[in-house]
Structure formats: structure tokens, C-alpha cells
């Protein structure tokens, strides 16, 4: 077999050294009655050319990439500079383990340190961890973290938080005697309903979790919500599902968020049918001991030179076991590496320009689409790169017609929001040319005429 570099002679010699006759003798510790004797019923092995052909066939069965798509809803199509793929595919980045031995892992560790710094700069918060699995579990970890800091029985989440994130939070806390309650969105603006928040916030709330831009693409102005939460002694958890927005919109630290977390897929990770993605988390310094996951820190070597190590591991499962801040071990280090390459390549101007083009193009699309009779803007107020339109014909019917014209117009909201059953969530990024946006507008026009 190609991946086994032992010759028959090597095997013979090794068996002799060990003092057994055949390899099977080494499995003597498996009682015969439980040993699997037959061959596994697997397909016959494929050679490399056959394997490539098989996967090309499966890849071709996906037709999604042949469409012009306006899907967002938690996963965003952005341009990825060539250096990101080029550098991240190096074996030195792809094939090491978690950097437990810092002296032979300085590359990985320094990059985590740079990544942590970039996340702090972007979120406006003091410290960040080395990564979490993805946005939804990052939000769930933030809830668990908030509850450790403020041991109170209730968690509030905005109904405008990504529906899958809300579901994951629910899964994570359901065995922990915590109560989860939704805060409504304002029917007009789609933003946090402050009256509802006022009604529900109390001194037994550990945290309020909200997303900005929220699931409807609406940019929140969370300062007032945050002070309502703080006034009752709770923590404000800001979720960012579209990380590129951080290049332009006010950072969570600026409106008083205690913890910011979210999805970093927009930073150099292809859509990849949902993974691997990148959960990120940052918080105020005073919460350091409750932060989950790996953290890289700076130190000195025996000759006084600067170097980097994984640190504060007394928070972690391998030391603290059941008392750890999280069970996370393997995280998404390679995805964080890609984010670091992406961000260092774009720089502040590139990231701002990308965010700015998202803002401009999405708003252009919004304006054009809502000039069509039968298509109306659902929520007022500023949006980033997604927006909700209300259609005067059934959403599924419109969707099907547009698919025939090679267009995926957006994400139907009915499944997650029955109250928005006639609504579609449309996403436009810098990857959509004016021509493509105009094509969508024209196709929708035709459907409504």
C-alpha cells in the first residue's frame, strides 16, 4: 500500500526483533471471540486516477455553482486573494498538530498570536482566543462563559440572531438548568425590540445575545440595549455572523459588548458547503480566566529571545478536566491561519474597501429590487450586505421561476420565521457585479410583470 513505507524484509526483521512470528501475534490481546475476522464490506480500493474521477463525478452532481446566487444567511461569498491558498497549503501549516511543543511550533504560535491581535483590533476588545469551531458553537460557548461569570438562571437571545445559532445555544444549555428566552425584533425596523427587552431583562438574566448586522442584515445600534443589560448586572454578547462588516461598522467594544463572538468564514474561507469555518471570540480582559479554548501568549526563551507558547492552560480540559471552561481541544487553527493571511493581505484599507463595496452594492440592489411593483422592503433602517424583501407572490413560486433563469434569489425566511412567510433574505457582496445585480432585478421584474 502506497502509504506504508515498509518492505517485506523490513517487516520480517522487525518481527524478529520483537520476538514474534507474524503480525497477527501482536493482536493476541484481542480475545478471539470478539475479533473481526472477515473482510470489511467496503468497495474495492481505488487508484489515484480512479479516485479523482469518482470525486469529479460527485462534484459535478452539484449544480449550485452554475447559478448566480444571492444567498447569505450565515455564509458569505467573498473574494479570496491567491496568497491565502498558496501559503495555507504549505505542508508546514497543514500537517503539524496543535502546538504543544512550542520550540518546534513557533510559526503556528506566532500566527495565532497575530490572529488574536487582529481579532482584538477588529472587535475593539482586549483579548481573544485561538479559535472555536464556527459561529453557532462560538455563540453557545459565549453563553456558557457568561453564565460562569454571572451565575444566573436566564439567558435572553434576540430573535434576530441566526436561527441555527439559537438552536445550537438551546442544545448546549438544555441540560444545564438554564432558561432561554427570545427577545422580539421590532416589526418595523427588524432591530432589537427595546420594549420587549425592557420587559424581559431582570437581575436573574446572565446574558443577552444579539447579532449585528442581524440575521435580516439590519445594522443594530446596540448601545441602548447594552446599557439596559448592564443596568441589571448582566453581560452583553455581540454576535458577528458576517465578519467583513467589522471593516466598516462600529466594533462591539465601542458599544459596550462584554463578549464578541461569531463566524470568521468571510475572512478567506471558501463556502465549502458549510465547513470548515472559523469561530472567533474576544472579550474584556477581566474575563480572561473564563475564556474557552486555546490562547497563545508571548514569553522569552532561555537566552531572552521572544517566543510564543500556548498559555493559561489551567482553564483547559487537559489540566482541569470536568472543571474546565470548555471541552474544546482541537479547534480550527488552520482556518485562523487563513484568516490571518487574508487580513494581513487586505490590510485596513482593503478590508474597509471590501466592506464598503458590500454596503454600496447591497443597497443598490435593495433600491433597484424594491422599485419593482410587487417587491417591497420589509424593514426600514440601515443594512450592511443583506436585506429582506416582501414579495406579493409566493416566495417558492418566484424562487422556482428564477432558478430556471439561472438565479438563486435569496434565502426564503418562512421556515425559520413563519411571521415572515412572504419574505426573502437577499445577500449582495463585492463579488456581485452591477451586471449580475441588474440581471436579478430584470428577472424579478419579468416574474412580476
Amino acid at each position, binding site marked *: 500500500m*502506497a*502509504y*506504508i*513505507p*515498509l518492505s517485506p524484509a523490513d*517487516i520480517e526483521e*522487525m518481527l524478529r526483533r*520483537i520476538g514474534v512470528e507474524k503480525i497477527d501475534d501482536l493482536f493476541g*490481546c484481542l480475545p478471539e471471540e*470478539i*475479533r473481526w475476522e472477515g*473482510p*470489511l*464490506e*467496503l468497495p474495492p*480500493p*481505488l487508484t489515484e486516477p480512479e*479516485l479523482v474521477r469518482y470525486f469529479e463525478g460527485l*462534484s*459535478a452532481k*452539484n449544480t*449550485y455553482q452554475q447559478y448566480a446566487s444571492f444567498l*447569505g*444567511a450565515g455564509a458569505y461569498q467573498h473574494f479570496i486573494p491567491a496568497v491565502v491558498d498558496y*501559503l495555507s497549503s504549505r505542508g508546514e501549516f497543514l*500537517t*503539524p498538530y*496543535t502546538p504543544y*511543543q*512550542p*520550540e*518546534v*511550533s513557533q510559526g503556528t504560535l506566532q500566527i495565532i*498570536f497575530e490572529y488574536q*491581535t487582529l481579532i482584538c*483590533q477588529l472587535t475593539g476588545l482586549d483579548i481573544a482566543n485561538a479559535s472555536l469551531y464556527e459561529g453557532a458553537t462560538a455563540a453557545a460557548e459565549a453563553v456558557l462563559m457568561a453564565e460562569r461569570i454571572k451565575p444566573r438562571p436566564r439567558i435572553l437571545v434576540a430573535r434576530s440572531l441566526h436561527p441555527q445559532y439559537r438552536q*445550537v445555544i438551546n*442544545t448546549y444549555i*438544555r*441540560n444545564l438548568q438554564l432558561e432561554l428566552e427570545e427577545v422580539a425584533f421590532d416589526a418595523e425596523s427588524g432591530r432589537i425590540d427595546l420594549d420587549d427587552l425592557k420587559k424581559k431583562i431582570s437581575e436573574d438574566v446572565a446574558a443577552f445575545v444579539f447579532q449585528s448586522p442581524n440575521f435580516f442584515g439590519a445594522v443594530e445600534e446596540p448601545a441602548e440595549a447594552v446599557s439596559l443589560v448592564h443596568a441589571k448586572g448582566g453581560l452583553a454578547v455581540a454576535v458577528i455572523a458576517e465578519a467583513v462588516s467589522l471593516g466598516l461598522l*462600529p466594533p462591539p467594544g*465601542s458599544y459596550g459588548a462584554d463578549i464578541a463572538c461569531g463566524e470568521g468564514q468571510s475572512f478567506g474561507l471558501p463556502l*465549502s458547503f458549510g465547513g*470548515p469555518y472559523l469561530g472567533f471570540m474576544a472579550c474584556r480582559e477581566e474575563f*480572561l480566566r473564563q475564556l474557552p479554548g486555546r490562547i497563545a501568549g*508571548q514569553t522569552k526563551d532561555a537566552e531572552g529571545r521572544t517566543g510564543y507558547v500556548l498559555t493559561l*492552560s489551567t482553564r483547559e*480540559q487537559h489540566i482541569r478536566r470536568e472543571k*474546565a471552561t470548555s471541552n474544546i481541544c*482541537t*479547534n*480550527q487553527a*488552520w482556518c485562523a491561519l487563513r484568516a490571518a493571511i487574508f*487580513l494581513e493581505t487586505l*490590510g*485596513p484599507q482593503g*478590508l474597509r474597501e471590501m466592506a464598503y463595496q458590500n454596503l454600496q452594492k447591497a*443597497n*443598490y440592489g435593495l433600491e433597484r429590487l424594491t422599485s419593482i411593483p410587487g417587491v417591497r422592503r420589509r424593514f426600514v*433602517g440601515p443594512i450592511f450586505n443583506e436585506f429582506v424583501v416582501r414579495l406579493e407572490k409566493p416566495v417558492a413560486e418566484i424562487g422556482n421561476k428564477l432558478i430556471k433563469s439561472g438565479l438563486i434569489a435569496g434565502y426564503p425566511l418562512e421556515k425559520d420565521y413563519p411571521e415572515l412567510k412572504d419574505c426573502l433574505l437577499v445577500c449582495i457582496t463585492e463579488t456581485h457585479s452591477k451586471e449580475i445585480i441588474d440581471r436579478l432585478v430584470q428577472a424579478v421584474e419579468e416574474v412580476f410583470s
Partner: protein
Amino acid sequence: MSRREPLVFEISGPGKKAFSLPPLDVPENRELLGSIQPREEIPGFPEISEPEVVRHFTRLSQTNFCVDTSFYPLGSCTMKYNPKVNEKVASLPGFLLSHPQAPVDLVQGNLELIKKLEELLCVVTGMSHFTLLPAAGAHGELTGMMIIRAALTRRGNPRKIVLIPDSAHGTNPSSAHICGYQVREIKSNEAGTIDLKDLERMMTEEVAALMVTNPNTLGIFEKDIHRVAEIVHDRGGLLYMDGANMNALIGKFRPGDHGVDVLHLNLHKTFATPHGGGGPGAGPVGVTSELEPFLPIPVIKREAGKLVLDENRPLSIGRVRSFYGNFLVVVKALAYILTLGAEGLKEVAEIAVLNANYIRKSLEGVYHLKYTSPSLHECVFSDKRQREKGVQNIDIAKRLIDYGLHPPTMSFPLIVHGALMIEPTETESKAELDAFIDAMLRIAREAEENPELLKKAPHRAYVRRLDETAAARNPVLRWKG
């Protein structure tokens, strides 16, 4: 490599850039954000050119040990060779460009691929059903324990306690804890396996499950697994198997045939997907047919000739992450199984076990072996002999770096003080194994003759030994300029 690569922030210069977008092609509107003040700058954010980006990351990469360059016997991590064709097929456009919210009709290839790996993992392990959603081993443990809790709750009582052997990896107790369980430790016997008497005594009606790693972290097969399952089941509990070490057993033992109710695998270990310096991994969870209703959503099923997503599952534990798991990792693992086939997978286990035993035999007598039961894929020595000269496992580990070798695992199992957990995997040549053995023997001699040499190691790395205590005592966790 003596020059230190600076932090990106130290080479940043205002006005430098590596990237531009085409000019905005829609009419610009400056009033879009209303009362929201857009941020004008991101203080400290680096500005560098493209050649600097490439040099920075390339130079940093060269300071890493990795499987592509070095023997990497990190026990329980299964650092085997990562086949390159798997990277190639995982980057096919149909996979890379497909959106997780796409209508299912347009991503049938992806769903077929996931379904296929689920089915093949059932064949390999004897479990009835698999979910590929969990993002890593610990996430799989959490998912698996949630399934156990949901099933027991359905039976009438979720129970309070989870039993875990003292040799277990730290994620086991942590995962059980997040599931709302108290953890009780089971002592290992002199053979390094679960003490059946202790288990009989502790396995009460309050115990939800036993979490067992097999082979355990000592590399020893829990040969009484059948009896263990009986004891657990007789008292109404469920058996969880941590399959992190399945590399020793594929084609030799199917946990699902022997009373295991829930099993997680690590695709980034046994199934050769690259570990990426700390992820992404994937931690698929297999269950018995009885536990199938409790799997997380979405479940992929066949309906009228196509694959669809089933989210209407009232008994499900719910969603454990967004979308469909670490999909590209799933692609690579499927490619691995299809390349190897039944014989190839069995050979993996055989050679992994051969290599570990070759190392064990070659170092036995020089390094102390606390548990002498037969080893499968890894062997756990300790620094007991070298400690007489004041040399600890960390000194041995750091000295290995001077020989160009990655150190073994030292942080567990906790029942071996000063552990050196060595897992060579099946993808090492005899020459590599001999070089490691030779280095370990030399280091043992150095420990006798010149212990200071070890205590100050490494001498030939990019940096000398790093002060981890100082890092924790005075945390510097970001660049501040």
C-alpha cells in the same frame, strides 16, 4: 535559522498594501448608514505589501515541525501521513463553491458524499448510524453524551453520574460535565485496564454511562469490553466508546458488535485528514439503531430517488453546530477509505501496531514501562529511571528536538507520572523508526553522563526552551505596539 521573524505589526508601514478591489461599479450613496458612524480606522491593523506577506508566512512556516518533514510520534494524536490526492479532491469546485443554504436539489453530490461516508463508517465500526456533524473529537463526545442523556431521559431518568477511567483524555470528563453529569473516576488495575470489580461496585442505578477509550491511552486493549458492556447494560446504563485510538483496530474489531452504544471517531487521526496545527478536525458519532432517533439534526435521508434533509425529528438532541459539519474534512476522509479499501485499512492497524511494538521492544529496559500488558498502536514509557539523575520527561522531549524529532505526548495519561506516550503510526519507514530509537537510546546515555545537556535542551531549535510559567504568570496575549 537564527534571525527572528518579526510580528507583522512590526513590519507594517502606513500606505503599503497587498490588495485592491476593482472600482465600485454601482452609483455611490454616502447616506446609507444613517446615524451610524462608520469606523474610520482600525488602530494598529497591519499594512504590508504582497512580497512581505509571502516572506512573513513562508519564514514562519519554516519554523514548524510537521508530518511532511519529521517523525511526529505524538501519542494518541495519530500523526500519520496525509495523502495529497485527498487535498486535491477536496478542492474541486463543486465542493469548494457550494453554499450551505443552497436548495438541496443543487447540492446532491455533497449529500451523496456525506451519506456515503456515514455508510462506510458503519461498515468499519459496526454501528448502525452515523452523524458527521461534530467538528472535532471533543465535539463528538459532547454530541454522544447528549444522545445518551436524551435516550435515558426518554426511558424515564437521565441519571446523574458518568464513569470515566483514570487513564482517560481530559476531554471525556469535560464533555460529560457540560452535559450536566457528575464525573466519577474508575481506577485502572495493575494491567492498566478497567478494574471490573471497581466497575461492578460503582455501576449503580444512578450511573448514566461509562466512557471508555479503547485501546486506552496506555495503548492497551480493554479486553473485557464485552463484560464491561454487560455490567453497564445490566444496570440500565449505556456504553460510550472514545474512538480516538481506532487506528489500532480498524479491520480487527468493530465496537458496534460488542455492546458499544455510542462511538466517536476522529477523522483527523484514524482517517488521515491533516491536523492543520490544531484543526479543523471532525468527530463523527456512531450509534446503535435504538439511539438513532436522538441524532442531531439535520439527518440526511433518501426520499423519492433523491437525498433530502430531515429536520423534523422530535426526539433529536437538536442542532450541535451550523450547517453540515466540517464538510471538506469529510471529503478527505472518504477519499482515504476509498483508496485503502478493506485490506488497506486492516494493514493500517497491523503496521501501526507493528511499529509501536518495534519501538517498545527497542527501548524496553532503557526507559521504564509502568504497564507491561501488550501494546497496540502506542506505548507509554516514563522518565522514572532518568529522574534519578534529575532528568524529567520534558527534558527528554526537548532533547529529541535537537535530533530533529518531534517529542511524544507527555500531558497524559495521568496515571503514568512523567509519561512519554509514543505513537509512531503506520506511515513511518524502518529508517525513521531506527533514527528515533537511536536518538532515545543516546538521550538515555546523555541523561546518565550529562544531565545538564538535557535540562537545557533544545540547543539547535529556532528558539531555546521557552518559559511557559512566565507566560502564564504575566499574560501577554496580543501585540500592543
